């Protein structure tokens, strides 16, 4: 059976012109497709988020992360540069790093003590010359030919990305200027501080979460916290930006100053406005916030194809990494952060607002279960299809959020890179 045979023979056609209007449900369950994703996406010419640069401050610092399902070590070497390589011994494949982070001089495998430097090069083999002239490694063995695969590493506004394919586009071109600018908007000129790390195990294919982060249409419908308690006190307008490749995006909303001014007049003319619900929060300090950005953007969700999300929900900031675990499970790694120059009051505000996000967040807990609902709803119907028709069929940026354009953009880049 050829590589494509499964799709051609056993699956109904996923016509190119259907493109991104309809997504067959087998894309969330097919094991061969997943093998292809590992090859074309996670080991291919894409940029995968690795860590924050501040997690690697001094030479010898390392973090152990994953790219797709592949364990990876990211280091800062004595030359001050960042390096990334597979967390896999050159010899027989054991994990080299057995902690999530730390500071080391090298990585010596626990199995047979083969030693690797901070750039992932094999530099020592235990009993290489044997003992008393007996044993030792084969004469033709060359240490420089051995070694875990290395990643190309790039840093953008303090975010460290890696790629197993040296030929990946430079990240500025991969993302385009608008996405790069929106990352800089959150991170530039300030030193992040990690405030906490949590991993959420989601019972769904990784692409369902990727879709969810790009789905600006669902936000006010599935997540009813703000509407139930009538917390959208300010008039908001927003939009989405989809990059040229399609798979990276920004969804944002901002205070609409004009509508606010109009509303202020209305309050005098109409004293009989009644609340639709009697439900009120008892402690409104949850919604307290401080002016952190030059603009009026209160929410910005930004994704980088295929596995990264940068979140600003008021002052609650986090990066999220999407890690597939087979076809029907994934890990979502959250790193909450603030900045070094936060005042104690600002830090407290971030802590309170963190109740909005994460595995138990008021406006994010639903995202923990919705992917599982789709997975369970569709597993028995692989040949049926999801519809992506909101906002038409384009993958263009737009001034409103009632659109599925960013999801279509994801699938456009996905189909192109996967060649399916």
């Amino acid at each position: 059976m050829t590589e494509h045979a499964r799709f051609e023979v056993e699956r109904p056609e996923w016509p190119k012109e259907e493109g991104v209007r309809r997504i067959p449900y087998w894309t969330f369950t097919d094991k061969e497709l997943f093998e292809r994703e590992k090859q074309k996406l996670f080991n291919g010419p894409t940029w995968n988020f690795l860590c924050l640069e501040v997690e690697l401050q001094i030479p010898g610092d390392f973090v152990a992360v994953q790219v797709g399902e592949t364990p990876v070590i990211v280091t800062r070497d004595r030359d001050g540069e960042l390096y990334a390589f597979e967390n896999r011994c050159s010899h027989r494949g054991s994990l080299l790093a057995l902690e999530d982070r730390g500071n080391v001089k090298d990585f010596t495998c626990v199995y047979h003590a083969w030693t690797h430097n901070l750039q992932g090069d094999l530099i020592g083999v235990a009993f290489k010359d044997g003992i008393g002239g007996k044993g030792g490694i084969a004469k033709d063995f060359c240490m420089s030919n051995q070694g875990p695969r290395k990643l190309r590493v790039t840093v953008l506004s303090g975010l460290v990305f890696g790629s197993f394919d040296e030929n990946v586009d430079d990240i500025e071109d991969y993302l385009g200027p608008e996405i790069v600018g929106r990352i800089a908007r959150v991170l530039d000129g300030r030193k992040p501080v990690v405030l906490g790390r949590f991993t959420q195990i989601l019972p769904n294919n990784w692409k369902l979460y990727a879709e969810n982060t790009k789905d600006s249409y669902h936000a006010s419908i599935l997540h009813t916290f703000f509407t139930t308690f009538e917390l959208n006190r300010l008039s908001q307008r927003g939009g989405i930006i989809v990059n040229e490749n399609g798979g990276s995006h920004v969804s944002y909303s901002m205070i609409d100053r004009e509508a606010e001014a109009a509303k202020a007049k209305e309050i005098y003319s109409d004293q009989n406005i009644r609340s639709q619900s009697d439900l009120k929060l008892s402690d409104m300090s949850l919604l307290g916030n401080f002016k952190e950005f030059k603009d009026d953007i209160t929410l910005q969700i930004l994704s980088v194809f295929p596995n990264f999300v940068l979140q600003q929900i008021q002052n609650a900031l986090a990066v999220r990494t999407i890690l597939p675990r087979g076809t029907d499970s994934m890990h979502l790694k959250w790193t909450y952060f603030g900045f070094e120059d936060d005042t104690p009051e600002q830090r407290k505000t971030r802590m309170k607002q963190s109740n909005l996000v994460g595995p138990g967040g008021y406006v994010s807990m639903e995202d923990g279960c919705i992917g599982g609902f789709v997975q369970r709803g569709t597993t028995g119907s692989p040949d049926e299809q999801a519809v992506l028709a909101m906002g038409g069929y384009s993958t263009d940026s737009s001034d409103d959020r009632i659109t599925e354009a960013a999801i279509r953009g994801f699938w456009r880049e996905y189909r192109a890179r996967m060649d399916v």
Partner: protein
Amino acid sequence: MISLSERQQLVTLISMVQARYVREIDDGDCTAWPDFFVDDCFYKITTADNFAQNLEAGLMWMDSKNMLRDRILSLLEANVYERHSYRHLIGQPYITDVEGDELDSETSFMVARITREGPTDLFATGRYIDRYRLTEDEPKLVKRIVVLDSGYIDTLLGFPL
């Protein structure tokens, strides 16, 4: 230094209130859960790794009884999730310090989660790191830090632990 019998009395007192606490979450509707706390309480759910590294963020981070009330109100009125319940098993409280009318204690717990379509799953293990204030009727929580042993949370964390 307090005597053994005084310590036993405190252990009994804390055990009794903690038995009621988990009953409210597992078999009640959580609406009385905030009443186990003083008004200006602190409640946080974090993980052993974050706790060990002094990372301050929590899965829940609340510094007033009203915030606890809001949590339950939101779960009952606003949030969307599949129907599920918890079953807590708690260990003996270990009293670590007594100072005036306040005491510190630690208690291990295991929590199973039972979701609408599924078996009983082990959802969380960990310890409560508590400060109680002894009042006339019963001890009230001034501070509860829920330290989860694992940093991995399955699906979502809605109801408190």
